[in-house]
C-alpha cells in the first residue's frame, strides 16, 4: 500500500468553557476531539460521520490549522505539520484545502468571483497578475460554471452554484487533499447530487484525496472508500465502505445506520429499527467507561459493568467490549 498522505495520531482538541469566575475557579474543559487517529491515502476518500457535536468539524479545523491541537500530531507526507509557525505552515496550507458547509457564509459578498479565485493565487505567488484571470476562468469551467460570469458577485448565484465557487477556490491551489465539511448538506436534493457528482469527477481528473465530513450516511456511502464513525470526540468504528454498511460492528454504528430512513416505502415500512433512547450526552462531562454505554442497546451482552468503568480501545475496527462478529445484524442489508 502507498504511504499515507495524511496521518492523524491521537489528536485531542479541548476548549475551555466559561470564564474563570471572580474567584479564579478553573474553567470546564469541553473535550470536542478526544484522542483520534486515522490515515488518508492518496486518491482516497475517507468519510467522517457522526451526529452534531461529535467533533467532526473540530477535527477538520484542527487538521487545516484553524485550531491548535491540545495534544497529538498531524503529519502530511510524513512531516509533522501541527505545531508549526504560520510561516512554516504556508506550503502545507496550499496542499490541504477546505470546502465549507454554508455556501452563503463562506464567500465574501463584496468580492467578485474573479477576486475570490485570484486571491489565493496572489497570496501564494502561483500566477502572474495577467494570468490570474485566465486561471480563474479555467477553474470556473472545471466546476461547471460559465467562465463569463467571472465578474459577478456571490449573491448573483444560487446555493448550488455558490458551492461550486467554493470548490473552485479550493482547486485554485492545486491541492492534494481537500477537506469537505458537510459540503452538500445545505443544498436541495437535486443540487446535492450535482455537487456530489462534481466532487467525484474532480477527484478522478486531478487525483485528489478527500476527507469528507457529513452526517448523511447515504451520501457518505456513495462517495467514500473508507468511513470512520465518531461519537462524542472518539472514533468508535473505522472500516471499508462496504464492510461498514453490510456488517457494522459497533452498536452505535448499527443504530445510526438503522435510523436512516430509506427512500422506498416497501423497505421503510417493514424493516426492523433500532431506536436509541435519549440524547447525545454533553462533551463537557462525557460518561465514564464507554461513552456510548448509557444509550447502548447491547450493553446487556457484556458481562459485569465493564462498559461503565473501562473505556474500550479502538481495535482493528471497532471500539467495543463485545467481540467482533461476522453475523452481526445489519440494518442496511435489506436487498
Amino acid at each position, binding site marked *: 500500500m502507498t504511504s499515507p498522505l495524511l496521518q492523524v495520531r491521537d489528536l485531542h482538541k479541548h476548549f475551555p468553557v466559561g470564564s474563570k469566575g471572580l474567584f479564579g475557579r478553573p474553567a470546564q474543559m469541553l473535550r470536542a476531539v478526544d484522542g483520534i487517529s486515522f490515515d488518508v491515502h492518496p486518491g482516497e476518500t475517507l468519510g467522517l460521520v457522526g451526529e452534531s457535536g461529535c467533533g467532526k468539524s473540530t477535527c477538520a479545523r484542527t487538521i487545516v490549522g484553524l485550531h491548535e491541537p491540545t495534544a497529538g500530531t498531524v503529519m502530511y507526507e510524513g512531516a509533522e505539520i501541527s505545531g508549526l509557525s504560520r510561516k512554516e505552515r504556508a506550503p502545507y496550507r496550499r496542499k490541504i484545502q477546505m470546502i465549507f458547509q454554508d455556501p452563503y457564509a463562506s464567500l465574501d459578498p463584496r468580492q467578485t468571483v474573479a477576486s475570490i479565485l485570484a486571491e489565493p493565487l496572489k497570496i501564494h505567488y502561483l500566477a502572474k497578475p495577467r494570468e490570474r484571470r485566465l486561471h480563474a476562468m479555467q477553474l470556473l469551467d472545471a466546476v461547471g460554471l460559465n467562465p463569463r460570469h467571472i465578474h459577478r458577485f456571490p449573491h448573483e448565484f444560487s446555493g448550488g452554484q455558490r458551492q461550486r465557487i467554493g470548490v473552485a477556490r479550493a482547486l485554485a491551489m492545486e491541492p492534494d487533499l481537500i477537506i469537505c465539511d458537510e459540503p452538500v448538506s445545505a443544498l*436541495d436534493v437535486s443540487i446535492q447530487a450535482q455537487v456530489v457528482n462534481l466532487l467525484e469527477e474532480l477527484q478522478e481528473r486531478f487525483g485528489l484525496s478527500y476527507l469528507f465530513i457529513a452526517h448523511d450516511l447515504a451520501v457518505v456511502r456513495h462517495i467514500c472508500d473508507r468511513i470512520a464513525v465518531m461519537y462524542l470526540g472518539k472514533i468508535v468504528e473505522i472500516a471499508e465502505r462496504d464492510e461498514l454498511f453490510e456488517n457494522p460492528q459497533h452498536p452505535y454504528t448499527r443504530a445510526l445506520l438503522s435510523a436512516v430512513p430509506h427512500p422506498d416505502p416497501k423497505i421503510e415500512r417493514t424493516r426492523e429499527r433500532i431506536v436509541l433512547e435519549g440524547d447525545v450526552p454533553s462533551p463537557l462531562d462525557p460518561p465514564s467507561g464507554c461513552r456510548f454505554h448509557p444509550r447502548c442497546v447491547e450493553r446487556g451482552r457484556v458481562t459485569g459493568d465493564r462498559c461503565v468503568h473501562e473505556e474500550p480501545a479502538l481495535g482493528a475496527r471497532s471500539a467495543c467490549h463485545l467481540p467482533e462478529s461476522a453475523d452481526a445484524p445489519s440494518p442496511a442489508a435489506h436487498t
Partner: protein
Amino acid sequence: MALLDVRNLRVRFETHHGVVRAVDGVSFSLEEGETLGLVGESGSGKSVTNLSLMGLVPQPPGVVEADALTLEGRSILEMSDEELRRVRGNEVSMIFQDPMTSLNPLLTIGRQLTEVLEVHERVTRREARRRAAKGLDDVGIPEPEKRLDQYPHELSGGMRQRVMIAMGLLCSPKVLLADEPTTALDVTIQAQILELMKSLQESHGTAIVLVTHDLGVVAGMSDRVNVMYAGKLVETASAEALFESPRHPYTAGLLGSVPRLTGDTGAALDSIPGSPPDLAALPGGCAFRPRCGQAIDRCASEVPPLHVLGSSSSPRRTACFEHARLGGAAAQGGDA
C-alpha cells in the same frame, strides 16, 4: 366529507421584484387519520401551502384565494380572526422546523404549554399544568414536572422538538401540519420523533400533513404524496405507487438524485440539471421544462394540466404531457 378540502389554492406575494406566485392552483383533500406527504425543493410552495391552511399567510403582501379551502365544510378563508384563533392550536395545529426560534425563550415550557389549554379549553391553571405534564410524558420527556419550570435553552434540540409536538397535540387536533419537523435533528433523534408521531397518530386519529424534502422520511410516514414544483402540484399518488413508478420527470429526477444505503455505488447520481426557477420570472409553459430531459415542443407553450391516471382504487395524477412514456421507463428510482 373530507376533513380538509383544498381546491385551486392560489397564494401570491406582491414584491418589489414583481408578483411571486408561491402557490398556483393546488388542490387536495385530507381524510381523518391519513398522512399526506408534501415534497419539493426550497421555494416550491410547500410551507406556504401549510401556512395558508392555518390562515397564517400575512396579508398584505400575500393574497390567498381558493375555490374552496374548508375544514369539515367550514371555509377557512371566510373565518374571522376570532374564529381562526379558536381553530389554531385546537382543531389544526402546526409543528415548525426550528424549535429554537418557534418556542418563546422568555417563557418557561410550562407557561407555553398551559397557555394553549387556558385559551382553548378554559381549564384551571392547576388542571392545565397537570395536562401539560401529561403531554410531555406522552412524547417521552423524562421528569415532565421538572421540565415545566425550565426554559427552552435548558433543553436539547430533540427535547425542544418534543415540546413542540406536545404543544401541537395538547388539544387533540384533527389536523397536524408538520413543517420539516425533523430536519434540524440528528438521525437517531429523527427516528425517535418519527416513531413518536406515528404512535400518537394511531392513538389520537390525527391527520398529518408532513412537509419535508427528505424522501426517506416521506416513504416511511405517508399514505399519499403530493410533489410540488414552482408552486404547482406536479404529481400526486399513493406513496407506494409514487416511489415505484414516478410519472413526472421531476419526481423521477428527485428519486434518482437521492443516494441510497443499498445497491450499486459506482455510478454517478442522476442529478437534475440546472436550478429551481425564480418564481417571479417563470418560463412560459411547463415550469420544469428547462431542466427536463423529456420535454417536447408543446411543453414550451402550454402548461400541462393534471392528468388522471391509474385505477379508481388508487387514483394518481401527473402534470406531464409525456407521462405515458415515463410509465414504461419507470424503474429509475426504484432500484433498492
